[in-house]
């Protein structure tokens, strides 16, 4: 705390007018105390998981809290290889990378058409995509399961990719329609007059301009698809695979490990498995915090 300078006094009139009255540290103490309680409630389970992942099963069982006496990084090796977290990671990437790419590409194509062209049946297309956002996914589960079975797409990564894209389309399309509508029409007209085809105009002029909207949707869909649980649970299992192979993605795989855990009692390995999933997410989140917050809340802010 510095002593109050005369110049501060002079500023006081403007300070009062602001919605943030300047409070003394003392007055803020209850606020900090309150915020700290929730911070502890959030951090404690996470920190406990990470600490436990470096301890032995004995330590976890008998002294539930406390720091690891020695760092047991071998828990991570066990989680990565024996518990197949490495495979789950790989499977998730294998699905999410192509699925994210095509979600953005196809959504941008549909959104551009809906935002900039008039044609017969436009209303039908528009309302079809709108309808997909209204219903709970549970309504589609039984028929989707049999559609996938019928098309021989169940238990294939390609099939899961197609389903991820299809279910990501409606929201992404509507977000990008609004975005394309904000871009000046003149640019598109000028490009056509210059002799570019519609396709060239889209890829060379409009798509680069839509980049901020695409980035927001990339973050939104990446997290949504990376964290997806019910669709892989419905569509992927390990039938017909050799021992040690798996089709599971991360969130589904972690749950599978938790069930197995009840028979195997490898607590430290299990904590390591959860940490392996959590820590990279934390690092990425802290780096791209503002973008991720914006990308995630965009659905609610639009609504």
């Amino acid at each position: 705390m510095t002593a109050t300078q005369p110049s501060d006094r002079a500023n006081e009139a403007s300070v009062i007018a602001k919605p943030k009255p300047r409070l003394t540290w003392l007055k803020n103490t209850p606020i900090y105390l309150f915020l700290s309680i929730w911070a502890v409630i959030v951090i404690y389970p996470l920190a406990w998981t990470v600490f436990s992942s470096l301890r032995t099963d004995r330590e976890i069982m008998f002294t539930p809290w406390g720091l690891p006496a020695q760092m047991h990084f071998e828990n991570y090796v066990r989680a990565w290889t024996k518990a197949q977290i490495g495979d789950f990671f790989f499977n998730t990437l294998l699905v999410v990378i192509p699925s994210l790419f095509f979600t953005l590409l196809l959504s941008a194509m549909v959104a551009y058409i809906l935002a900039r062209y008039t044609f017969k049946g436009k209303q039908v297309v528009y309302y079809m995509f709108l309808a997909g956002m209204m219903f709970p996914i549970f309504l589609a589960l039984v028929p989707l399961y049999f559609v996938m079975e019928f098309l021989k797409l169940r238990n294939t990564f390609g099939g899961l990719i197609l389903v991820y894209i299809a279910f990501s389309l409606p929201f992404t399309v509507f977000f990008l329609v609004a975005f394309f509508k904000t871009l000046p029409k003149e640019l598109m007209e000028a490009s056509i007059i210059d002799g570019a085809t519609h396709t060239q105009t889209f890829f060379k002029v409009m798509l680069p301009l839509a980049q901020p909207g695409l980035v927001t949707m990339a973050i939104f869909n990446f997290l949504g698809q990376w964290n997806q649980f019910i669709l892989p649970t419905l569509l992927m299992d390990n039938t017909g695979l050799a021992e040690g192979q798996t089709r599971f993605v991360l969130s589904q795989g972690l749950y599978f490990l938790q069930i197995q855990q009840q028979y195997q009692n490898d607590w430290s390995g299990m904590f390591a498995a959860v940490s392996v999933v959590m820590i990279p997410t934390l690092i990425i989140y802290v780096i791209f915090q503002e973008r991720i917050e914006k990308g995630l809340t965009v659905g609610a802010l639009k609504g």
Partner: protein
Amino acid sequence: MKYGQRRFIFGFLVIPVILYFIFVILPFGSSILIAFTRWRGVSSSITFNGLNNLIRLVGDELFWNALKNNIIILFTLPIITISLSLLFAALFARGLRGQRFFRITFFFPQVLSAAVVSVLFGFVYHPTIGILSSLLGALGFKELSTFPWLGDTSTVLWAVIFVAIWQAVGFYMVLFIASMQSIPVEFYEAANIDGASEWALFWNITLPLMRDSLRTAIVFLMMSAMDMFAYVSILTNETGGPGRSAEVLSSYLYGEAFRRQNFGYATMLAVVLMLLVLGLSMIGMRAGSQETIEY
């Protein structure tokens, strides 16, 4: 030119529309029919079942049990989540030192998947190794030091609801902060000159001007309350908890379909869930929309 344009439109729409039709529209649409059938799996034939699924549903205690739990969640999850996140947002709107740390911390659970969070809380609630029990034991509640939070009919539903709140608070906090920041300062300046208290400012200016985002939050949280699938399935190992005390419609219908092969009946449950979701979102969107405040 005109011909080229039509071909271009068709070319851009054909793949996404086909994909979307096969994997989204077709399943959603056909479910309305499947809900009125008796269907036990791929090998057996589908037979039209009239209103029997609906009649069974009315007399199905497990359905009413799941619905009851959904309703409990529907009333607790939005209220607690919104109260907490609104309070945090209001505190941050004053511009606190270190608020970046709190903001990052509070939002982080939202970045994780509900599945990971549920697995993690499966540990937290564990009677022997879990930190909740050991914490309470250390605080002197000896009888709670090995309490099975997920294995007791009186606590399992609340344990599940807490996980949902834990994950959601940061999200709505960020939403409300954005909404508060968009309120023009002049509103406060005028009221400040009139000598209104901080509480009066919050109650009479901030809250009414946040109407839209509050409504969105309520609708979103009601949708979450009608979902809960990942939390319930993982925290209860797909049992719905002891005595199914934490079973919700989504987990019940999933089990009916994919563990007991009652595909027709499960789809009828899904149709009821859909009607509830649509009804709730309509109520939510209507509520208070007559008097939108322009500024």
